[in-house]
């Protein structure tokens, strides 16, 4: 992906190729600064937020326009101006890969901002509303910059701006200890990641001689491996790959819902972008890269969704399911890497194509679901699904949107999740070596965990759906906002339409995906396009047929039952005299069997009451699924260090004469160290 030369800003202002880059840059600047005008307005008024949202919408539309312009000519367009840092240049490049990731960056935050206009009214949150608006905009802008940066230093700066903005945005309510803790864990995790990246880029410069993120196929295998590992760890932290995901559930659960939506729907993908970008630049020769990514992906996927089933906090469930989806993306990416190392274009096409399409899809349905969760929390004033229930009656529209999102994330036809997973499946099956060639059957086995993920996802989202919307309300929902404001519905509706659209007409996306995979790897004989590799038009057809069947049957049934008596009665109580809402199957009880099944990875905590004696008093049974890595490995480790390291403080007990002694000692040590033959 060589940029078309590096011209200076002035002499390519008139160049049509540059138009798209310039539009995108403008969008980035406006997005990043969108919150600042609000500082002039009162922090209790809505004015600031309104201005910010207006600017964000404007900027995002500009950015999307830039993407459209780019798609017209679909050539790598680069822009670079000299920059007064010890190193190199301010240079940005827009190529097919950037485009793929730019789309969600410009779509989701915009919708989130509109949603936030109703969900997080600055007038109702004077203490944090303003800073939230500022950092929300900065987050969006920084992410866009990350995607187009073509210089390692610029990339790092954008990357850290993104991380910090996300930190401030997600800890908006830092009065609550949980929020602080989650933010702190996130900050540590992201910093470790950044340090890995810093090391990686320093090594990169040491190897390639410059910070330009230009193709480096000449790098020696050893260093390529090191660079790959460093970047996979560094970006893996952001993407939330197991076991580097520790920060993710807490941060997502404690952030305001529209921030969670952006973090989960877009920011995690920046980690994916990083891996995709680096693997595009590096020479992929060894097939352990692909194998590793594939394995990690499979583990991440299954473990992620298993954890999701174990939770009862709606946003934690969604967060873990994001981890699962990252796993799916990694499976696709791993297959593509194998395709690179075995030079099998078809695997690259299907693997990378599926992964990138899933990036889009996940950003659609996951932000839809987070918006939805926000509305639910708004209504129920709790995040614990075991206390909800029967919401469908109050909010039928919300339920419809939820069903679409849930079905999509379970990859059920005819929605978009199915399209991308179908591509990945096809690629995995192709890895069997169907056309008699050797193939890489070990990779094909990944189809099995993928299937398991699908089934578990159904379980997870039926649990959530049932516990939140269906059945009877478990406790009288305190002060409902019976109807949702349109400002919150519209963004969700837009996303839902996106899910349906991509699900029914996936071939609309193929040109971009083909471009991206060509940019990613140019293998001999890589002329085929995804459309030719996998008959996507059939997906459309099947989707329509399915819808038609459902319609027909429903219609027939309606016609048929018109003449019949339809009587209403209470749910059959199986002869139990006085059923109450509390005897319903809760989310926890729904997931309990699976939790026990997966106990070997989940390590659930259960507190059993001991009712041995006669006349036992009131007892209660508690069970929860904490994050094994975080709560059983990381936290204890830090605890131990926190208790034992401070013991060194005996060295600083305030006695001056000891301090003088240290000086004498170090002199002697240095004399010895320098070889006291002086």
């Amino acid at each position: 992906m060589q940029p078309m030369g590096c011209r200076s800003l002035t002499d390519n202002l008139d160049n049509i190729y540059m138009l798209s880059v310039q539009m995108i840059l403008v969008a980035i600047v406006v997005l990043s600064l969108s919150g600042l005008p609000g500082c002039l307005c009162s922090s209790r008024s809505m004015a600031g937020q309104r201005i910010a949202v207006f600017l964000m919408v404007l900027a995002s539309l500009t950015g999307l326009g830039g993407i459209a312009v780019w798609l017209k000519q679909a050539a790598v367009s680069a822009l670079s101006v000299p920059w007064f840092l010890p190193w190199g240049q301010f240079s940005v490049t827009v190529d097919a890969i950037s485009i793929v990731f730019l789309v969600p960056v410009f779509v989701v935050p915009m919708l989130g901002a509109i949603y936030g206009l109703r969900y997080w009214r600055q007038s109702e949150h004077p203490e944090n509303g303003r800073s939230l608006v500022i950092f929300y905009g900065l987050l969006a802008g920084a992410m866009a910059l990350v995607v187009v940066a073509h210089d390692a230093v610029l990339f790092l700066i954008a990357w850290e701006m993104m991380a910090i903005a996300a930190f401030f945005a997600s800890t908006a309510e830092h009065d609550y200890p949980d929020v602080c803790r989650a933010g702190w864990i996130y900050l540590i995790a992201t910093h470790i990641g950044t340090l890995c990246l810093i090391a990686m880029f320093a090594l990169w410069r040491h190897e390639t001689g410059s910070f330009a993120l230009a193709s480096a196929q000449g790098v020696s295998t050893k260093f390529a491996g090191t660079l790959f590992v460093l970047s996979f760890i560094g970006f893996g932290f952001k993407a939330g790959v197991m076991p580097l995901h520790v920060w993710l559930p807490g941060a997502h659960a404690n952030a305001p819902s529209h921030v969670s939506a952006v973090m989960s729907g877009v920011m995690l993908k920046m980690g994916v972008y990083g891996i995709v970008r680096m693997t595009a630049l590096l020479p992929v020769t060894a097939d352990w890269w692909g194998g590793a990514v594939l394995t990690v992906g499979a583990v991440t996927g299954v473990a992620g969704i298993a954890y999701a089933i174990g939770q009862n906090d709606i946003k934690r469930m969604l967060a873990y399911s994001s981890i699962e989806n990252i796993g799916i993306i990694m499976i696709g990416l791993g297959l593509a890497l194998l395709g690179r190392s075995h030079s099998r274009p078809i695997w690259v096409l299907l693997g990378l194509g599926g992964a990138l399409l899933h990036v889009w899809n996940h950003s659609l349905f996951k932000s839809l679901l987070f918006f939805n969760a926000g509305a639910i929390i708004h209504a129920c004033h709790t995040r614990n699904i075991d206390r909800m229930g029967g919401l469908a009656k109050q909010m039928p529209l919300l339920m419809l949107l939820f069903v679409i999102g849930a079905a999509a994330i379970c990859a059920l036809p005819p929605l978009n999740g199915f399209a991308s997973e179908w591509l990945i499946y096809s690629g995995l099956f192709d890895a069997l070596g169907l056309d008699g060639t050797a193939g890489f059957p070990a990779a094909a086995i990944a189809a099995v965990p993928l299937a398991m993920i699908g089934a578990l996802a159904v379980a997870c989202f039926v649990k959530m759906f049932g516990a939140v919307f269906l059945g009877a309300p478990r406790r009288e929902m305190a002060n409902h906002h019976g109807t949702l404001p349109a400002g919150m519905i519209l963004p969700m509706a837009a996303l839902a339409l996106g899910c349906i659209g991509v699900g029914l007409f996936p071939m609309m996306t193929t040109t971009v995906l083909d471009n991206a995979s060509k940019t990613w790897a140019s293998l001999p004989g890589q002329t085929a396009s995804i459309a030719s590799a996998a008959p996507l038009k059939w997906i459309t057809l099947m989707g329509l047929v399915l819808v038609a069947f459902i319609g027909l049957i429903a219609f027939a049934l309606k016609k048929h039952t018109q003449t019949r008596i339809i009587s209403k009665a209470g749910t059959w109580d199986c002869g139990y005299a006085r059923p109450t809402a509390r005897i319903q199957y809760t989310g926890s009880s729904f997931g309990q069997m699976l939790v026990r099944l997966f106990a070997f990875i989940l390590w659930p905590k259960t507190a059993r009451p001991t009712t041995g004696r006669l006349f036992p008093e009131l007892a209660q049974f508690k069970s929860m699924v904490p994050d094994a890595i975080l709560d059983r490995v990381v936290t204890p480790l830090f605890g131990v260090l926190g208790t034992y390291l401070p013991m060194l403080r005996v060295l600083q007990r305030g006695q001056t004469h000891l301090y003088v002694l240290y000086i004498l000692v170090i002199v002697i040590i240095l004399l010895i160290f320098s070889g006291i033959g002086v």
Partner: protein
Amino acid sequence: MAFAMILFPFAMAATAAAVPSNRLRPWLLPLTAVFFSAATVFVLMRPALMTTSPWLILDPPGRIVLLAISTLFLFCSFYTVGYLQYRKERSNRVFCACMLGFLGVMSIVVWSHHLGLMWVAIEGTTLVMAPLIYFNRTPRSIEATWKYLMIGSVGIALALLGTLFLAYASVQAGLESTLAFEDVLQNASLLSKPWLHAAFILLLVGYGTKMGLAPMHTWKPEVYGEVPGVVGAIFAGGVTSCAFLAVLRIYQICLAAGEQAYMSRMLLLMGLFSMTVAGLFMVNQRDFKRTLAYSSVEHMGILVLGLGIGGPALFGTLLHILTNGLTKGVLFLSSGNIHRAYDSKSTDVVRGAMRRLPLSGTLFLAGFLAITGSPPFGPFVSEFTILNGAFDAGRFWTAGLFLFLLLVIFIGMGKTVLAVVQGSAPAQVGQTPYRDGLLTAAPIVLLMGLVLLLGLLIPAPLNTMLHDAVSYLEGRP
């Protein structure tokens, strides 16, 4: 010119001692600082003025230190006015005089091109800072002053011994013995090695004590914990930089003597050790001012580490003098405000600073992010350059250790800082009247702006200054 820049602050100090009004006196600082900074800029633009006498030359490294300190002092002086308005209860005569006195002594250090004179001046800084530590007149501040004086004097005594060794190195080599920097540099290669080595060790330890390298850093947490924020800023950004300049001179001599390998071992050892100690002592640190002290230890370590790596890392090291100084200013001044507002330094009491003091709290947090090397702030640029230098020098393990220690320090420091700024203030906090005022907040904002600027671009003149300094250090014309 040198005399002007040296004598003017002393004259102003004398005036400050003479002025009777407790209210007007502080304004002498901004006045002096403005003129001094103007003079600094004036000198930096006219190479002709940089040589006054064989003993008083403003060489390239000196320029950078001068720029760093006078900038820091400029902002601190305005802050001081604001600060002293809250300390009406006691006379600020000595305080102002000593602040100005420091400016004078500092400019001797920067100008002096004679090792003996430099030693005298640096000892001078020790002496002028002592009354500033003692400003609060509490038993704790007496103790702090005592420790500072004892440890500082012992260190400086070793530095003197080292200086004498260096002089003797030339005598023993049968040369005309001298301490004039240029002459020593001229025939550095002829110096008698054993004496040179011994001298290097003593000077490193001696001036290292003033810098606050571990394990000679022991005075730092005690002192920084007690002094007013602005004095802390002068310490962490000014005094330490002066001492580092001294180390730079020694480095240059040993480099000229072809002792790079020998030095690197020592410097890397001291640097990494200082960073380690800083990191370990930051863990679960309750007193946020002590945390800043350890952060200062860490950054002295980074400077020395940069020297140890040498060659490719020198640029970053010199830049780090500037970035570290300014960022330390931000941190100490804002922490001073927070301390004033809560009347406590313990994170058990000090919470929710971002709610209580939106400006100072945010600046404190931003300063933390900057000092721990997050892009896009100045320290990131310098530390990243040092890291790249380490890679270019092929010192991969050093680089790895460096990054790891940075992580440890980030975690250690972050816990304290976040505890301070986040959350909501506990109820029982005594309601002090303090609110961020123009004079106590604006300077910090501007400093932060500078730090951010240095992270985004390095002005061309500064760039050339740094490059000059590097080539000067490496003895290239």
